[in-house]
């Protein structure tokens, strides 16, 4: 090989690096303002922590705030796909926003990795080969809560959730595993901050327990008003109603409440211990389940990049399906519809020093997959 051909080979290699080895561009659309900001900020921080720990410089992340508005999310997705030319989209917290963005993004040949929203419509008939959910299908945690409520001997539950896709999935999931009767069932407005009317109905309903799904600021408002109302029925809920952000704002009113989660900071594995310690060191607060989902999403992405190039969609997809990464949840694998198969735990709210947090007290459902996988034809 003479000198000329060496240069030629080097420049061909350089060109191909520009074309393929340039790395990967991620578009993150998440909620960073308003009453739902805590969730998006946690997902973002968990995600970015994993990226920085990987030490890779070939991942470029563009982050934008969707303000929990579907129209804003759609505009951001269009901008990211058309002008930013991202390869992978992620970040959406709310299922109504996911429904507005995900089908069109995957139809345009982009990968979408969901760190949170898992609407039933995207798990069953609407599933897509480029859509992966790293958190859970929406129903999952509520199914475990329903199973727990039955086991705990509750026979007459009052249930409420916001009126949007995840709220409907929540009540459907709870009812699927709850064997008792329902004293009442209410859908509230998404983003509602005053629950006086709902609490009055709970008081009058004669229920023996209350199941509620109210993530973010909604949960804080509800719990504070519930504590002040004098109604003292036991509460059951998914982890979203008792996450790290909500507990600090609500305080003593939540102590002792049981809730269901796929993750907690005391799950015993090396990846989780390292995650909890490094998250606290980096951000000065305890991670929430949202942060753990963001962290897992980034690690899944990095694991796929290690074995395949994103431009080779088939190989990259296979690498994602393998889920060959150390999840902070311990066991983690994808079902046929690209939704997690995982254990769901029962947690109790406790106080550690001055900090309110959760402790695992048992396992709700083991190796649990979602109810929609059978409808998914990829």
């Amino acid at each position, binding site marked *: 090989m003479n000198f000329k051909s060496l240069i030629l080979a080097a420049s061909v290699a350089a060109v191909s690096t520009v074309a393929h080895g340039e790395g990967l561009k991620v578009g993150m659309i998440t909620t960073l303002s*308003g009453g739902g900001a805590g969730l998006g900020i946690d997902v973002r921080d968990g995600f970015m922590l994993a990226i920085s720990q990987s030490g890779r410089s070939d991942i470029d992340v563009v982050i934008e705030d969707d303000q929990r508005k579907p129209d804003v999310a759609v505009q951001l997705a269009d901008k990211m796909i058309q002008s930013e030319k991202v390869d992978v989209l992620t970040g959406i917290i709310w299922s109504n926003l996911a429904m507005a963005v995900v089908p069109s993004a995957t139809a345009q040949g982009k990968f979408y990795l969901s760190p949170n929203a898992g609407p039933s419509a995207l798990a069953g008939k609407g599933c897509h080969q480029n859509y992966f959910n790293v958190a859970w299908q929406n129903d999952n945690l509520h199914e475990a809560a329903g199973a727990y409520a039955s086991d705990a001997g509750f026979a007459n539950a009052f249930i409420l959730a916001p009126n949007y896709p995840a709220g409907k999935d929540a009540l459907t999931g709870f009812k699927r595993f709850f064997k008792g009767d329902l004293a009442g069932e209410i*859908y509230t407005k998404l983003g509602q901050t005053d629950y006086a009317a709902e609490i009055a109905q709970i008081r009058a309903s004669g229920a023996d327990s209350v199941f509620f799904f109210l993530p973010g600021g909604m949960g804080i408002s509800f719990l504070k008003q519930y504590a*002040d109302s004098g109604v003292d029925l036991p509460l059951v809920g998914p982890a979203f109603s008792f996450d790290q952000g909500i507990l600090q704002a609500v305080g003593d009113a939540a102590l002792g409440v049981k809730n269901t989660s796929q993750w907690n900071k005391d799950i015993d594995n090396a990846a989780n211990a390292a995650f909890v310690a490094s998250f606290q060191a980096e951000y000065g607060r305890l991670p929430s389940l949202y942060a753990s989902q963001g962290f897992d999403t980034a690690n899944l992405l990095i694991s796929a990049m290690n074995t395949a190039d994103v431009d080779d969609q088939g190989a990259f997809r296979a690498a994602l399906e393998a889920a060959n990464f150390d999840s902070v949840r311990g066991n983690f694998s994808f079902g046929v519809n690209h939704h997690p198969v995982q254990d769901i735990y029962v947690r109790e709210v406790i106080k550690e020093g001055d900090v309110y947090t959760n402790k695992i007290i048992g396992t709700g459902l083991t190796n649990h997959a979602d109810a929609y996988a059978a409808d998914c034809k990829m």
Partner: protein
Amino acid sequence: MTTLLFIEQVLNGLQSGVMLFLMAAGLTLVFGVMGLINLAHGSVYMIGAFAAAAVAGATGSFLLALAASLAAAAAAGALIEIVVIRRLYDRDHLDQVLATFALILIFSEGTRWAFGSFPLYLNIPEYLSGPVTLPGGIQYPLYRLTIIAAGLSVAAGLFLLISRTRLGIQIRAGESDREMIAALGVDISRLYTIVFALGAALAGLAGALVGAIQSVQVGMGEPVLILAFVVIVIGGIGSIKGALIGSILVGLTDTLGGLFLPRFFGLFLDPASATSVGSALASMLIYILMAGVLIVKPSGLFGATT
């Protein structure tokens, strides 16, 4: 369906109604006296709530927090009037809407910059927390009862102010003929600043009172602003009495609609679709009420017929 539940819901409706009144009173005064559409009214509601949360966080005193909310909102109102609004009286309503909409964006981003995106939580003071038992065995949160009483006493104070004081006479006169009272020697621009600051202070107070049961966050004023506009359209623009009646009507319709409509649909639909149809329709109910009032009385319940 028990009487107790019904009475509790009426109290809830009343409570949200009187808080809406504090917001709508300022809006209707400003619109009636100055002929100005002020979208930034929701921002002073937010400023009041943030001032209260900041002062409560620093001092731990709820009363000081309320005083801070009044002072901060009144100061913000006076500042907005002197710096921006004063230049807009002679412009048409579109210019006013654009300018005050810009103020919303400025105040929202400014607050986000100063306090961050996370909601703040203002705690109900110890002596007002917990439920009380009313005659008839109804348990109701003491704090909500207190804000019903506070709202009604502010309403009474406002009636006295408008009907019995010199300032009130000037406000009413300014409403009907501003050139004439300027000609009579009343300092009209000072009057406008006072009215604007008064309206802003009431909105700020509402923000602080409501902030304690809900949450204090950027953008909390805009949903309330929309309801307040509905209220003044129903009550009649410029009428304080209309604002009070309209607020309570809207509060009760909203609360009782959310209670009765799902039950009504439950009579002939299955429970799941009854709840979703019922709650969807319940959230539209106040707008249906507004449309109904406008059909019967186009200038609102207590509006001046022109």
